[in-house]
């Protein structure tokens, strides 16, 4: 491995982590809608919709506007908007008699816009049942120029419905997994180097870095299950990615058992290096391929935050990637301390002989 000398990378890791911690916790969330009532209506009805917002400024905004959207060219604007306070607003809608498509029950998306919070949406806010009517008149539907909507100024994280503020966990929980993988790859590199050269120092490095990576994995499982408890209300879900990573952790815990089992250092080094290479190869289909074949609550599937075009917002990226780098650097720092300890012990052991 490239010998990184000096203190600078450790300081860098700490500073980047501080940046992630401060930025990740202080950047506000986008405005969003937490609650709407009623959720069902019939065509032709006049409804008053009660909306509770999150991080909204209905009262201080000069002009609140709201629409219900059926598809990209059919909108109904609220006839009047009554704001009680910053968080609550009453919207009056006159639903048209006809709907743009033929289905019996149609979901409408609610869009609210003001100059402070910008525009924000709640998909499937209202389900409209089409009542029997022979009219076929779409004139009540309007079009909406998206350019006329306001944009919120400043940095914000995207608002997602169940996740709310826990979207910030992307920087801690998700980044932990990525850092774990990078550390495992570094450990793998040392394992291969050990098998190639037979220098005992590589074994120390590989084992210690792997151990720190396993520690990250355990943190990942704990933090993940805490997060799941407050978003999906269970500590453990049947989610594929979760279960696959649990299997991965089992495989690496077996690695620890293997290291603990043998006493002869030379043989132990050889066995555990081979095992870790084998285990890493067994892990690749597990974590990267299988979850992609099936549905998952996790990144990329079902509208959850993490990687993948729309899901990882640019502002999230601003903290997510630095967080991975910081966690890797901190992990390397921790493992370097342990490695120095192991080297000292090895030296003392040699002297005794």
């Amino acid at each position, binding site marked *: 491995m490239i010998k990184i000398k000096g203190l600078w990378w450790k300081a860098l890791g700490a500073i980047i982590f501080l940046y992630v911690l401060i930025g990740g916790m202080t950047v506000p969330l986008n405005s969003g809608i937490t609650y709407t009532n009623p959720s069902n209506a019939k065509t032709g009805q006049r409804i008053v919709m009660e909306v509770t917002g999150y991080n909204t400024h209905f009262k201080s905004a000069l002009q609140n506007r709201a629409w219900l959207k059926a598809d990209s060219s059919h909108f109904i604007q609220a006839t009047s908007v009554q704001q009680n306070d910053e968080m609550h607003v009453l919207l009056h809608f006159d639903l048209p008699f006809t709907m743009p498509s033929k289905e019996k029950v149609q979901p409408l998306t609610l869009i609210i816009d003001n100059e402070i919070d910008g525009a924000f949406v709640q998909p499937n806010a209202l389900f409209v049942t089409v009542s029997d009517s022979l009219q076929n008149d779409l004139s009540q539907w309007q079009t909406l120029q998206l350019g006329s909507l306001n944009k919120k100024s400043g940095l914000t994280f995207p608002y997602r419905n169940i996740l709310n503020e826990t979207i910030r966990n992307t920087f801690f929980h998700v980044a932990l997994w990525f850092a774990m993988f990078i550390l495992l790859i570094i450990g793998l590199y040392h394992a291969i180097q050990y098998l190639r050269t037979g220098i005992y120092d590589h074994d120390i490095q590989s084992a210690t870095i792997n151990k720190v990576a396993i520690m990250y994995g355990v943190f990942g499982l704990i933090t993940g299950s805490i997060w799941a408890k407050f978003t999906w209300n269970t500590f453990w879900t049947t989610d594929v990615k979760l279960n696959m990573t649990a299997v991965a952790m089992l495989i690496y815990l077996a690695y620890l058992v293997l290291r603990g089992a043998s006493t002869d250092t030379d043989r132990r080094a050889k*066995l555990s290096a081979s095992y870790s*290479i*084998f285990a890493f*190869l067994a892990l*690749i289909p597990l974590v990267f391929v299988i979850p992609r074949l099936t549905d998952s609550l996790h990144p990329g599937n079902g509208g959850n935050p993490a990687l993948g075009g729309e899901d990882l917002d640019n502002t999230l990226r601003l903290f997510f990637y630095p967080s991975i780098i910081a966690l890797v650097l901190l992990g390397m720092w921790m493992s370097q301390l342990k490695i120095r300890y192991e080297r000292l012990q090895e030296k003392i052991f040699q002297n005794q002989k």
Partner: protein
Amino acid sequence: MNIIKVKDIFIKELSVEFRQKFALGGIFLFAATVVFIIYKSFNNINPREWTILLWIIMLFAGLNAVVKSFLQEKKETYLYYYTLFDPVDLMIAKLLYNFVFLIFLFCMILGFMTIFSGFPVKLPGLFVSGSVLGILGIAIVFTFVSVISAADNTNATLMSILALPLVLPIVMLLLKISAVSVRLLSDTSVNEDVMLLAGVDSVLLGAMLLLFPSLWRS
């Protein structure tokens, strides 16, 4: 790689196995007993349980069987082999032997399961291809782990601790494939799963071929 030598070792393994009839019989007895216990406790087994039980019995019976293949021999024998054969030859022969043995065991368990609780497989082609690939994967992992635990001079406990987690991803894929083959799930991407299984097998085989010589030297 020398095919004749591989064949020689393979035949030697087989003859050793058939000479120790009690060990062979023990494993088959184990399989039969477990199937019978399960049959008695479930009475009628639906297809879901059938596939799960099939693989669980297979896993544990297979583990029992393979543990011996490297542990039964003494250190001196290894030294003798070391002078005689190329490690790759030896490993391929052992792998081949384990594979054949596991297939044989699988057919046995399948036979018992069919006698006691029917044969719910609706897509035999998929079932057979998936099972063969899966058993190959299991054989690779078990052989590799038995090499490790034999090199470590420790008992069979280490082997099962190491082997079970490693074999889990393969078994999970297998369970999915067999669930599709008994029509519990309908999945259009099941061919991808079979391909994935083949991919896993080849990657693990490659890794084992690379790693075995360095392990062998110890």
